[in-house]
């Protein structure tokens, strides 16, 4: 008990509380700007943490990243421009709700279930860290391959267009992921002698291009859509309790999937959101409603990505192995501040550990009031004329992509992908599937090639290791299910014809 009292004393310092509040506002703003991701919000905080006490330093990172992942939903719902890759999976759904006249419900879901998901993830971190860490350490490249493959298959599940076009988009994404030298062979591919292309195409500029820039281009081509009825923005939290009661199963499933994906090093909030959204559609009683502004998928995915954020800290704190790009930065800060990751953190520095837990919970609680304010401010863009908003978005995209590496090439990437995304959308190819391909491409290739190197070219370990075999069975079942279903339908029809 003494440890908890000490931990509370550590958190209830003026500087820590102020750090939480300021980084919360900062995270909300950065996350909501298209082109600035949660990872970037965290990276930009590092120089600031130099001047803070250890607990305050870690608090800024925890708070800012949680806020940024949530507020990435805001431009997604209001403008159909996801703020972070984690929001890309369900942007269309949230935007459809806004067009239906329920923007407050869409954003309320994002806020409420993100906060709940974050708390669920924190509880898993508090109660289950050691067993969860064991899961993380039982995943070798064979398991990662299946996981990444399953992730890729989400492309067809999520898309509302024809599955063939979704697969084409996804494959294009995989092609983009091939560019650069960061492949298993360490050989430059598709770089055409350009130094900039050596590093490959980063997912963030590509995402910003295909969503934000192409949206602006579309806006220039088409007449302004009918204004949403001018009215007061309704209560943001109303109805959330009912939804919580109504959709218990999707929410819990989202939490669990998020926690597990978060714990696995290398698979973060982005993947959690995709997998959860497509699982939600698979298990839903009304899958046909998905994509038309239906809350179910939003609930599951929102619950999932914030849960993964907290559980991503498990391998980071126990082994110094980052769960995602955000914790990769956080580990550096932990070392810098003398809170070295490792088992001793849980024993010798237990009070600091508990202080981190308390900060996680606090951050997810203050997310609700601050998020409501943020949503109210952001909702003003719905009333602003489109001709005023679109130039600002282009500006943000350019500034945001430049800021990542102070490299003009990223800005050109954004522009190129903007054109690309525009052409794709016009012809009915879902751009979200391409983003998924870019995000997952490296992981699929890396895990496949390294697995084969390790097994001297044998594919047997992909099926013989226990967890790999389960994942393989799931993947193959998911692959064959549509074939089986259509065969069954065809057989039934022919039976009916024969008897009739």
């Amino acid at each position: 008990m003494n440890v908890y009292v000490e931990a509370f004393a550590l958190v209830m310092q003026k500087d820590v509380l102020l750090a939480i509040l300021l980084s919360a506002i900062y995270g909300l703003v950065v996350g909501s700007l298209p082109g600035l991701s949660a990872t970037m919000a965290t990276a930009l905080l590092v120089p600031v943490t130099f001047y803070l006490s250890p607990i305050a330093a870690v608090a800024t990172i925890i708070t800012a990243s949680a806020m940024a992942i949530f507020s990435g939903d805001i431009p997604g719902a209001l403008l159909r421009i996801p703020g972070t890759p984690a929001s890309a999976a369900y942007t269309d759904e949230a935007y459809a709700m806004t067009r239906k006249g329920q923007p407050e419900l869409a954003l309320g879901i994002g806020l409420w279930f993100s906060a709940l998901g974050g708390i669920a993830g924190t509880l898993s971190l508090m109660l289950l860290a050691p067993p969860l860490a064991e899961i993380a350490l039982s995943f070798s490249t064979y398991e990662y391959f299946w996981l990444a493959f399953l992730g890729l298959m989400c492309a067809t599940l999520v898309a509302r267009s024809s599955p063939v076009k979704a697969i084409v988009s996804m494959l294009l994404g995989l092609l983009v992921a091939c560019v650069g030298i960061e492949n298993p062979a360490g050989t430059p591919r598709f770089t055409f002698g350009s130094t900039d292309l050596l590093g490959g195409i980063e997912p963030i500029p590509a995402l910003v291009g295909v969503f934000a820039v192409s949206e602006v281009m579309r806006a220039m081509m088409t007449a302004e859509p009918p204004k949403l009825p001018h009215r007061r923005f309704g209560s943001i939290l109303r109805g959330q309790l009912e939804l919580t009661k109504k959709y218990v199963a999707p929410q819990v499933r989202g939490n669990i999937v998020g926690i597990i994906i978060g714990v696995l090093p290398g698979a973060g909030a982005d993947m959690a959101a995709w997998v959860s959204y497509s699982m939600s559609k698979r298990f839903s009683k009304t899958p046909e409603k998905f994509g038309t502004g239906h809350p179910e998928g939003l609930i599951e995915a929102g619950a999932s990505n914030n849960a993964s954020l907290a559980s991503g800290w498990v391998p980071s704190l126990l082994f110094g192995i980052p769960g995602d790009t955000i914790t990769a930065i956080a580990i550096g800060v932990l070392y810098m501040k003398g809170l070295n990751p490792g088992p001793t953190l849980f024993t010798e520095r237990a009070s600091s550990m508990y202080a981190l837990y308390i900060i996680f919970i606090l951050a997810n609680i203050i997310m609700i009031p601050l998020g409501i304010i943020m949503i109210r401010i952001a909702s003003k863009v719905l009333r602003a004329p489109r001709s005023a908003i679109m130039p600002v978005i282009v500006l943000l995209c350019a500034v945001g992509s430049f800021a990542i590496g102070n490299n003009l090439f990223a800005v050109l990437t954004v522009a190129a992908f903007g054109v690309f995304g525009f052409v794709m959308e016009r012809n009915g190819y879902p751009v979200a599937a391409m983003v998924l391909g870019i995000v997952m491409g490296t992981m699929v290739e890396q895990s496949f090639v390294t697995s084969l190197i390790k097994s001297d070219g044998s594919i047997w370990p992909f099926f013989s290791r226990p967890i790999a075999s389960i994942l393989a069975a799931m993947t193959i079942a998911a692959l064959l299910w549509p074939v089986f279903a259509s065969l069954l339908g065809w057989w039934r029809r022919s039976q009916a014809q024969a008897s009739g």
Partner: protein
Amino acid sequence: MTTWTRRQTLAAGGAAGAAATLGLKTAAAQGAYPNRPVTIICPWGAGGGTDATARIIAAVMEKELKQPFNVVNRTGGSGVVGHSAIATAAPDGYTLGLMTVEISMMHWQGLTELKPDSYTPLALMNEDPPGVQVKGDSPYKTVKELADAIKATPHGKLKASGTGQGGIWHLALVGWLTAMGLKPDHVAWVPSNGAAPAMQDLAAGGLDIVTCSVPEARAIIEAGKARSLAVMAAERNPVFKDVPTLKEAMGIDYTTGAWRGMSGPKGLPKEIASQLTAAFKKVNESAEFREFMANRGFGVKWADADGFAKFMDEGNKAMGVAMKAAGLAKG
């Protein structure tokens, strides 16, 4: 008439003002360097180890030379973009950079024309030697036992990782194997996306050896999931006093490491360069820098401009030999 006069007065005033500023500028230029903020280019992303090192150096330099030192991350092209930016900056002392070991590797692979001698070396600040890590419950208790096992196993049976193909830790393995008289690919290299995923896969049983630096493996070693058998350095790591050097354990005098050092573009004026080297020496010896590096587990190393140039030259040649042996070099 009045208008004309006023215009004339304004013009005259402006000219006088311009002259004054100009005069001031020349005076300042003749005055002590630095008289305006200095940029430090970091070729790697914000939030990483090189970024953190650049920022602590900048923070102490700011106190030392009383001018802001701003760290700018110029990422992309696997470090090529940032290293090029350092080389092509104006040699006036207002753009410096934190170079990393990759500068002595990338040109062998034909990725860039830039070599260590394309710069004005100023100061070597850090070096982290690789360790030899095995799984926590591995049967090999000493590096000697592991080496014997490696020699006894068929070519390519054992697997090692730690970074991408042709990365610094890959070459560390190649160097060690060659020093033992084995083929550079006697232990197969499994490319990974950095040290952390490799350590994770080691613990998951997917790999036999990981040759990343000891600080990178520290947390997982402390968790008992991995053990470090030796370091490829001249001296032991103060944090892991029990881990012997390769020379102590098996008499092989092979050392290498990932390093970071400050440099400027070629042709930096001598006075400025020596002033900077002196300042970096103070940074290197400062309690602030030492404490920071100890916290992160990074090794502190010092060499002045000449020492750094010599260090890079030797490292560059050794890398060339190792990369050619491993078939990684072009031409």
